[in-house]
């Protein structure tokens, strides 16, 4: 904050000096325009940058001020009155138009702002008294009372006051509850809503406030040009100029609009002057090219990039070097028209490796005392194609475009995890990487941590958190998450009480399930730390809390919390520990208790009694009802599954050498039996089975079970079977059960089969859950999923942990 104030002070001093000392009208005109546009860009930045509602109609608030000035002056009133009048009009207009439209998402909002601005334009042109299409010419006067000056210096000073006010307001916004809430809403409105942030209310407040600065800029503009008409104040072109200024500098940043205005004024005015006037189009070519380059290479804008580097001063040099390298790589990377089936895009892989190197350089061993960088390989589970960041004889790699392309040896299982290949420890991530760049970077750093966890004395420990599939376990875990979410975004002085709540809800859980403390902590020390490391190294400090809330929200959407809860809790614990007791990571060992550390760091004594007392503050009863309902539904479902698939009569087909496809998002663990997958298709020695209603897959030996057919039929309730030649349905081991037998002996050995993941299943199994960054299937136990040979029994942990429903980016 002090740095920002110093910077602002320096700018103010420089502008005052310029206003007093410079008499070059052209230069002062540029300075005035620059300051005015910086204010307009900042105003836009509040709603479109911090709140994330991209507006293409922001000029209407500017016009409110300009028209207020014109009306005041032409009616013989003081132009100073136009400041409050224009600001009020703009705030009212923002409230009236924002109330319905701020609920719209994405492009629907942007187009709505265009529509609103066009309607305002039509209104101004057609309502008597507003000057129509001709607008107003303001009478010439002079002096502070008339707010008109023969020289440009005073205008620059006034614009400077406005600019300083807008920057100060934004500094306050960044540190206020409103600012936190807006960023939380932008990052994930559903997650923000889940902690009780009302979207419409806070966005309306921001919208109304920012409209007032734009109006003040409009007043100054009118007094400066003495001419106000619709095209110059509220056309789409003005709105788009404002938006582009906000973006070029970096949206959602304090200094972005000022930098954007500098670029815009330098180009639109400077280049146009240099190249002999606007209208030739050269200024547009250069400006357009710059915007294109920023969007493609530095999508967070100029300031976003600089801030990112400055926030991590220690690694700034390394980051700059790596960023330059990444840029060069990126620009020089050929984008050949690749044939279908060439699954791993080498350029994308190289970029992911470059991102990782940049993050490692920033870390430089800061978090764990050792570098997170090392051998890393991306593997396509369909083809075993491997793209590595270094050469590996075991994978027979050949260099290509800066990376190493080879094939994963057949004895290495494919998962998001750390593995040993050819004697070296590697981080492995399944291809494709998540689309979302943040999720991709988190996943890559998450798996990088798994590679070093043994070395830093935090080896994976066995953990069975089956209690998190019970109604009570789920309830108190989600209560803990709610309290954690509030704690991470709370101001520092209120955080301890909220941490006490969170840990008390945990204490209540531990009281009900005595083993929970040990088992949960074991997974937290493994996946929780991995995920926290991923988040910490890929998120700028100011977004840390919001990212943690997002991870909590994405945890809540998972079908089962048994293996996934630490992905959600880890980053929140990390963020809270970081702010109370920096360096906590170095004090960790395999016996550390993260919950106890957190309690000590905030000097709180969690207790089950507090949990019961504080529960009403977090749950109005809805969560309890939902969890009880879920438990009841699960019990009913399990009873009917047992009747259909266990008690029988059933058809059992041993899966000796079979391909099968299933959707891991629709999996119901059946205790003691295996899991029900729906739908399933399988083919192999017996022919093929299509079971849209689902089939039970049992372990040891792996068998697929469906309800028995009527005698002589080859289809049954919810499935059809096409038998291979020579095969028939024969009586099974149990009375009334049946199985399949073939005339020729079935192939006995086979690790050759490969189940093809069904589309949706493949998605979550590949760890592509965008918000979480990694699938719970990743981890220290290499889960041979989804490429498990069917002859190998899936470990119970896989069958017991349905992978989470991916939270894809919502499509309007």
């Amino acid at each position, binding site marked *: 904050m002090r740095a920002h104030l110093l910077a602002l002070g320096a700018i103010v001093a420089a502008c005052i000096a310029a206003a007093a000392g410079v008499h070059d009208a052209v230069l002062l005109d540029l300075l005035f325009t620059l300051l005015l546009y910086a204010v307009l860009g900042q105003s836009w930045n509040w709603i479109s940058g911090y709140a994330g509602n991209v507006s293409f109609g922001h000029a209407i608030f500017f016009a409110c001020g300009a028209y207020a000035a014109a009306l005041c002056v032409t009616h013989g009133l003081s132009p100073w009155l136009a400041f409050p009048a224009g600001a009020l009009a703009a705030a009212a207009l923002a409230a009236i138009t924002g109330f319905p439209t701020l609920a719209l998402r994405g492009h*629907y909002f942007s187009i709505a702002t265009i529509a609103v601005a066009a309607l305002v334009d039509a209104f101004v042109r057609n309502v008597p008294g507003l000057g129509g299409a001709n607008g107003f010419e303001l009478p010439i006067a002079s002096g502070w009372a008339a707010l008109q000056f023969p020289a440009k210096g005073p205008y620059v000073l006034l614009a400077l006051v406005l600019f300083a006010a807008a920057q100060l307001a934004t500094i306050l916004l960044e540190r206020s509850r409103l600012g936190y809430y807006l960023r939380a809403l932008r990052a994930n409105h559903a997650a923000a809503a889940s902690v009780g942030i009302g979207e419409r209310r806070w966005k309306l407040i921001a919208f109304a406030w920012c409209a007032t600065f734009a109006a003040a800029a409009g007043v100054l503009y009118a007094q400066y040009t003495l001419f106000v008409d619709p095209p110059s104040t509220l056309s789409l072109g003005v709105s788009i100029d404002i938006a582009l200024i906000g973006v070029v500098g970096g949206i959602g940043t304090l200094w972005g609009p000022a930098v954007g205005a500098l670029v815009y004024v330098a180009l639109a005015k400077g280049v146009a002057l240099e190249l002999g006037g606007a209208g030739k189009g050269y200024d*547009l070519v250069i400006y357009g090219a710059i915007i294109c380059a*920023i*969007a493609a*290479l530095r999508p967070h804008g100029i300031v976003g990039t600089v801030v990112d580097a400055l926030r991590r001063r220690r690694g700034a040099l390394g980051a700059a070097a790596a960023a330059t390298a990444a840029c060069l790589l990126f620009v020089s990377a050929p984008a050949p028209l690749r044939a279908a089936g060439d699954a791993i895009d080498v350029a994308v892989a190289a970029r992911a490796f470059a991102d990782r190197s940049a993050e490692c350089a920033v870390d430089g061993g800061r978090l764990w005392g050792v570098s997170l960088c090392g051998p890393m390989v991306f593997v396509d589970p369909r083809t075993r194609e491997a793209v590595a960041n270094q050469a590996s004889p075991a994978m027979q790699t050949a260099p290509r475009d800066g990376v190493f392309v080879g094939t994963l040896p057949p004895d290495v299982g494919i998962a998001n995890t750390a593995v040993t290949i050819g004697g070296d420890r590697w981080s492995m991530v399944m291809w494709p990487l998540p689309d979302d760049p943040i999720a991709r970077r988190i996943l890559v750093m998450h798996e990088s941590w798994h590679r070093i966890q043994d070395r830093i004395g935090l080896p994976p420990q066995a953990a069975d958190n089956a209690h998190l599939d019970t109604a009570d376990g789920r309830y108190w875990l989600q209560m803990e998450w709610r309290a954690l979410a509030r704690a991470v975004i709370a101001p520092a002085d209120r955080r301890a009480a909220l941490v006490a709540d969170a840990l008390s809800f945990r204490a209540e859980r531990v009281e009900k399930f005595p083993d929970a403390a040990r088992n949960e902590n074991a997974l937290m020390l493994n996946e929780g730390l991995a995920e926290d490391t991923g988040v910490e190294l890929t998120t700028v400090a100011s977004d840390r809390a919001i990212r943690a809330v997002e991870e909590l929200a994405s945890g809540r959407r998972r079908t089962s919390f048994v293996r996934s809860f630490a992905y959600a809790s880890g980053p929140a614990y990390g963020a809270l520990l970081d702010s109370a007791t920096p360096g906590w990571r170095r004090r960790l060992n395999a016996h550390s208790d993260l919950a106890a550390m957190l309690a000590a760091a905030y000097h709180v004594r969690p207790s089950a009694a507090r949990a019961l007392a504080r529960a009403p503050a977090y749950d109005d009863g809805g969560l309890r009802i939902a969890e009880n309902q879920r438990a009841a539904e699960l019990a009913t479902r399990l009873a009917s599954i047992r009747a259909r698939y266990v008690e029988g009569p059933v058809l059992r087909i041993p899966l000796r050498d079979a391909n099968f496809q299933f959707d891991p998002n629709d999996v119901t663990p059946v205790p003691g039996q295996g899991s029900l997958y729906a739908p399933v298709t399988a083919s192999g020695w017996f022919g093929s089975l299509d079971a849209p209603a689902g089939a039970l897959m049992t372990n040891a030996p792996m068998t697929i079970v469906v309800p028995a057919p009527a005698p002589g039929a080859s289809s049954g309730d919810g499935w059809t079977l096409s038998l291979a030649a020579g095969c028939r349905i024969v009586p099974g081991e149990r009375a009334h059960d049946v199985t399949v037998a073939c005339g020729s002996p079935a192939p006995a050995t086979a690790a050759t089969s490969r189940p093809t993941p069904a589309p949706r299943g493949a998605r979550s199994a590949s760890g592509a859950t965008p918000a979480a960054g990694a699938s719970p299937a990743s981890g220290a136990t290499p889960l041979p999923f989804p490429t498990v040979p069917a002859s190998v029994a899936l470990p119970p942990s896989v069958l017991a942990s349905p992978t989470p429903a991916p939270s894809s980016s919502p499509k309007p």
Partner: protein
Amino acid sequence: MADAGVEALSTFGQLLVSGLLTGLVFALVAVGLTLIYGVMDVVNFAHGEFLMLAMYATFGLALVGIGPLVGLPLVVIALLLFGIVVYRVFIRRLLAGPPEATVFGTFGLLVLLQGIAQASFSSDFLSIQNRPLQGVIRLGSVTVEQATLAEGLGALVLTAALFAFVEYTETGRAMRAVAEDRIAATLMGINVQGVNATAFGIGSACVGAAGALLMLSYPVYPTAGAQFALTAFVVVALGGFGSIQGALVGALLVGLLEVFGGFYLAPELKMVPVYVAYLAIVLLRPQGLLGRR
């Protein structure tokens, strides 16, 4: 009294036909936009500038003696290739960034292409000489310009072809698969980058056809496309981003509102009913008429 009634009725018929034809012209521009959005979630704000390039290309062909109807396939192919190149070189990189990168990247492209056009061709209005189909057709009291009719029919053919392509061809199915779930599509062996590039190319080829047809009745200048594109954005949002049928329905609705609004309100207010209808519809159905949530 009776005469006035007949006149009102024939005026209404004329407005109806004009409105539908105007709507079809909007559809011509909008279908490509919605296809691109549907497959890769990108609103190509430079879509109008692609149209402008197609119109300049048609103008260029006319200078060497190739008329717009004969030149149409050439312009379509040129825009297809241009779209693929733009995707491979530029859009692909935007997709790796945050969502706003695609908005501002395509805006940058808009500014760049307008600048290039202005630097190369100046801001003059250029119309092709000896345009074909300049007559009118009279159907009772309703008059239709041949050129507008050709544009409307072209829009219908284009929309139907695009719909059939997406619904019934292997590539179209791949596009729908990518639209549905990009990662799953990758795992099923669909080359997502290839599909995206194809979709971007085809979306651009659509404005290639539109540009050739629109040169039958409109002049070209550096910001010629922006006029159509602005309406196309409203059309696509009104119909629901990503829906080809929605674009057609939205375009017809916008065409009718604009023509009737222009007649009964005032010519300069013709867009008011369009924007009011857009706001009313998205406030009731935030995903547009035929869009998916």
